[in-house]
């Protein structure tokens, strides 16, 4: 078994209104910054033990499907990396 860290990024699908991001963008503009768009996303980092990277990814995909993301409004991305082991 190896230790992996999976990073799950959950964001609203393109075209779904994000009022919190709009509010944040407005606040930045009030501070005088110039920007044309702001997108927000939630990111989860999971440490897990698995036989290999594919097995780790498969398990994390199921977590994203069943809880972390809502497929009606969200897209998600998963990145898996082997954790650096302390020696």
């Amino acid at each position, binding site marked *: 078994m190896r230790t992996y860290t999976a990073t799950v990024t959950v964001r609203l699908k393109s075209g779904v209104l994000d*009022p919190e991001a709009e509010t944040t963008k407005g606040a930045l503009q009030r501070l005088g910054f110039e920007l044309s768009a702001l997108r927000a996303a939630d990111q989860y980092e999971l440490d897990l033990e698995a036989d290999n990277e594919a097995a780790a990814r498969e398990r994390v995909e199921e977590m994203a499907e069943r*809880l972390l993301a*809502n497929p*009606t409004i969200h897209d998600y991305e998963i990145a898996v990396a082997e954790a650096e082991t302390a020696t």
Partner: protein
Amino acid sequence: MTVAVIQFGGSNCDRDAVRALNYLDIDAERVWHEDELPADTTGIMLPGGFSYGDYLRAGAMAARSPIMDDVRAAAEAGTPVLGVCNGAQVGSESGLTGGAFTTNKSARFQCEHVYLRVENAETPWTDAFEQGDVIEIPIAHGEGRFEITDERYTELEANDQILFRYCDAEGNLTEEANPNGSTGNVAGILGERDSVAVLMPHPERSTLPDIGGTDGQGILTGFRG
């Protein structure tokens, strides 16, 4: 026979729901989500509140609570199920109904009276009304904006699964009358069966005459069967 009002950690409209149902001579009791549904359950209400502190997404955690497997099974067997506010979010997250309820367009929590137009009066929840009737019910939510894919929205409309839409006092579906930016002004929808429904407004808060309007009575009487 009893209506099981499921109490999750963070539910806060469960007592109001029981009291409103009892006022309508409908037997009801609170059932903790870690317990089992009573054997004589004839209806299930998912009440409002902030289950699990709205962590992750409103309703997401409660929707994965073990009792929801029993609620889904009961719903498929024809038991009436009504989700209100957080209960609507739980119902949506659990797949009892389609779409999703997410952050209000205003990005604010909104607590106000709204008008609803009855879109489908051929359901247990709207049997007391006529199609096109305008009723007044309060909302209290921060994540009530109904979102759904275009394809699924078309299906909802085609299958008469839209129960209520936000409207003005005359029944017009305007942007101003849409408190949270919901797709199609949708305030409440049906599941696959018309015995399963969710809505963001609170019928239990407009049932007891002493605290205001009584337009919610006609919705809750859906539990009489």
